[in-house]
């Protein structure tokens, strides 16, 4: 019997459906024990494994249009930049799932990975993780909070993967089935804009969407073979992405 092909977990985010409500960001923070903002935190120093950006068409009112662009670790599958630069081997690509994992217990906080990440999807803990008094009891028991001084990022809800694997093992199965493992952001999206699954399975919905017209990846020219795809039927979105994401409507 042929061995099962390793999985390549990834997602397709439909930008034409995303309403920018932020439910994915909140669900992600709760699932992964990301603390509330320190009073001094800003957009630059805060921790948002999943961050919804607004990408505008650059035209003035009333012709301005925008889409909401959720940015998370793109789960690079080739020459993963953060893996290559980490002096501590604190980042690795899981061969069985394709997930780029961050091990905070190995991280020494040099932030080389942050400099290397072309997607700016890595975050440094500038402060001790703190919740209002008494709110620590609402933490997810499957995920350890990270200490001050280490880098963290999206790991496609590794705690949920472990839970699904443990459940399968308890039921005598070696593999988890499609739909048994879903990251928190995917589950929370009210517009069903995020489709998640195994990109290595050609029949899966996510693989078909990734191949569909209108699908693209960020900074594809870098050849990182990222496993997060985006979709939009609006031509200007494709043009804006090609000309450089981050060019938001004029602000000052």
């Amino acid at each position, binding site marked *: 019997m042929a061995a099962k092909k390793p999985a390549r977990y990834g997602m397709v985010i439909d930008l034409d459906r995303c309403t920018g409500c932020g*439910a994915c960001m909140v669900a992600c923070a709760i699932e992964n024990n990301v603390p509330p903002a320190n009073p001094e935190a800003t957009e630059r120093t805060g921790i948002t494994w999943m961050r919804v950006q607004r990408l505008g068409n650059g035209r003035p009112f009333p012709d301005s249009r925008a889409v909401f662009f959720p940015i998370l670790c793109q789960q690079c599958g080739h020459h993963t930049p953060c893996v290559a630069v980490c002096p501590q081997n604190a980042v690795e690509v899981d061969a069985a799932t394709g997930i780029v994992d961050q091990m905070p217990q190995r991280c020494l906080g040099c932030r080389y990975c942050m400099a290397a990440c072309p997607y700016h999807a890595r975050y440094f803990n500038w402060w001790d993780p703190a919740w209002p008094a008494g709110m620590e009891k609402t933490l997810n028991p499957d995920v350890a909070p990270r200490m001050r001084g280490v880098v963290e990022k999206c790991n496609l809800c590794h705690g949920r993967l472990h839970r699904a694997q443990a459940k399968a093992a308890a039921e005598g199965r070696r593999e988890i089935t499609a739909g048994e493992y879903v990251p928190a952001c995917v589950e929370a999206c009210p517009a069903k804009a995020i489709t998640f699954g195994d990109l290595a399975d050609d029949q899966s919905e996510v693989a078909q969407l990734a191949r569909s017209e209108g699908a693209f990846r960020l900074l594809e020219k870098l050849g990182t073979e990222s496993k997060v795809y985006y979709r939009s039927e609006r031509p200007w979105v494709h043009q804006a992405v090609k000309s450089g994401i981050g060019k938001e409507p004029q602000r000052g």
Partner: protein
Amino acid sequence: MGLGRRDLLKLMGGGAAGLFLTPVPWRLIDGVAIRTENWPGVPDPPRGEVRTRYTTCTLCPAACGVRARSVVDQPVSLAGVAAHPTSAGVLCAAGLCGHHLPLLPSRVRQPLARRGDKFQPVPIDTVAAAVAAALEDIRNSGSAERVAVLDARPGRTASLIYRRWLGTAPNGIYLLAPSADSSASLGIDIARTGTVLSFGAPVLDGWGTPGRVLEARRSFRLIQVETRQSRTALLADGWLPIRPGTEAALALGIANVLIAEKLYDAAAARSASDFAEYAALAAEFPPQRAAELTGLPAQTIVAAARDFVGHGTAVAVAGSDPGAGPMGDGERIAIAALNVLAGSIGREGGFLPRGEAPRPPGFEEAALAPEHGIADAPDASIRVLIIDDARAAGAWCWSAIERKLARAHIVVALTGSLDGAARHADFVVPAPAYLEEVEDAPAPPDVPAAMFSLAGALLKPPPEAVDGVDFLNRMAGGGAALADVLKERVAAIHAARRGEVFHYTDGARTAVSDVKSAEDLWKALEEGGCWIDRRPAPKQEGRVTILGAAADRVLEAASGRLPADALYPLALVPYGWRGASGGAVSPIMTKLYQESDVETGGDTVELHPDTAQRYGIADRQVAIVQTRCGSCRRRVRVDDAVMPGVIQAEVGPSASGNCRPEALLDACGVAGDGTWRLARASLRRA
């Protein structure tokens, strides 16, 4: 051979360099990293049995099903219930972190009385005695002063109890919160709707039941009429950016086109007793005049009118922004009239009459105080005001309430946290927070079928917590507890033997007629379930009235809400987001308004670059927004998606934590019709 100083230094240098070729330093770093992983600043997540429990969200009128993952008894995450008949597995951002609300630092844990600018703890009996004495005084003196309950979440069983109590209280008046939409008498058959013409309603961003609306999104066209480029406007099929306060003018302009081109439903129009009068009013707003008022090209208005009725059943809905408060009557009537022209009332895909869950005996409509808006209460008339603002879904302008209070008054706020209207109260009563009390959730405002959900308690409230019904009982010296009345209501539903129960645990449905007893029905609902009635059959209304006695108000609204003002040339447009504009939010929401720019935050206003340049204000500078009614300091964000001449101001939490929503709303001032959604303003650099 002697060992010289130079040799010693060489040895030490070589040794130090060689050390880096060994694993020692790397092991040391690794060891330090591992040791410091358990730094005292890192909290330990709780341990214990992990369980899944179910309840219903009561943070807004949408009444979404909730699946709670709990460690022992403490919920650690909330998610939607897949296959829920209305919420369809969806929870909004505020709902996802609702389990944090009982643990907020601003949580009220004991009764408080105002002493100057501060609150001090008092026994609950002191509060009850003060209110009872005021009631007695009104009763004995024969005064015309009123006793009022302002209900943030009407339609609940507790609301019925308030109304029954007010029916017996001296000059009792039951007031609906300004943003409350639970009492709407019509639901929308959105799954079969062809076109939604939204005048400022956040259709895709927390309006009605989000899961139901988003599920149906692919099947209807959406035209958004709004000054601001909101999230709904961005995702709509068409966006009509009108000048602030010109919704009624556009509605009449569209009506003009529909009537002139005979695109309206003639049968529905014949059923309107005052159609001729309405048509005459619409005739005053040809596309050219509507274009002058709204700032849209005339051909755009004509195209919007044709688009509105060109794709199956069309509905027009008026804005219910949680930050800006309700629209005025003039606008609402002008917009509602479009539904008569489109023939969408009582038709499949249009508006259908809403049902209500059976009531227990003693709660017949005749025994209850009628519902009123705040504007209905005479100014300076309310002696005792009890505000049930626990979990208010929208922001209130306190000035609108304050003007209704008599000179000597008592305001009691029943609230879970010291936010919103509670900050203005004389007494604060600690109500159970979300997830702490068994309560009911009525049918969401947009759902035509009658529904009834129980929100089972997942947590224990603090010992001093008192719910609104308990508070009334303390004043009256006895009475049935809320849980007992809820059981009576469930028994009434069981006795009616209509509809079915949806079980959150497994998605199964059971006909009520198959549920053996009222106790079994209660158990099914408390463990996670909702009762849903049969879908009402489409039924055309008989004779309807479009304008009634409100023709003048419609004309006034259509002539423009914001007259020119040389001193205050800008238009201040507040807006908010459901679940965050009304009061306390989980600190995890800082991800949205502090650590990213998903929400601009309540300390920020947005300006077009031209407007900012004209006032010499740069991006991120602090400015003073001044109106005739007040002023507030806000950080400026320059964005070329904002209409020139407009100040967009979000009503909600802020990173600095010191910008209260009411300051902005009070600066807007309250118009004659009790609304505060617009104001003329000026700007200067702070």
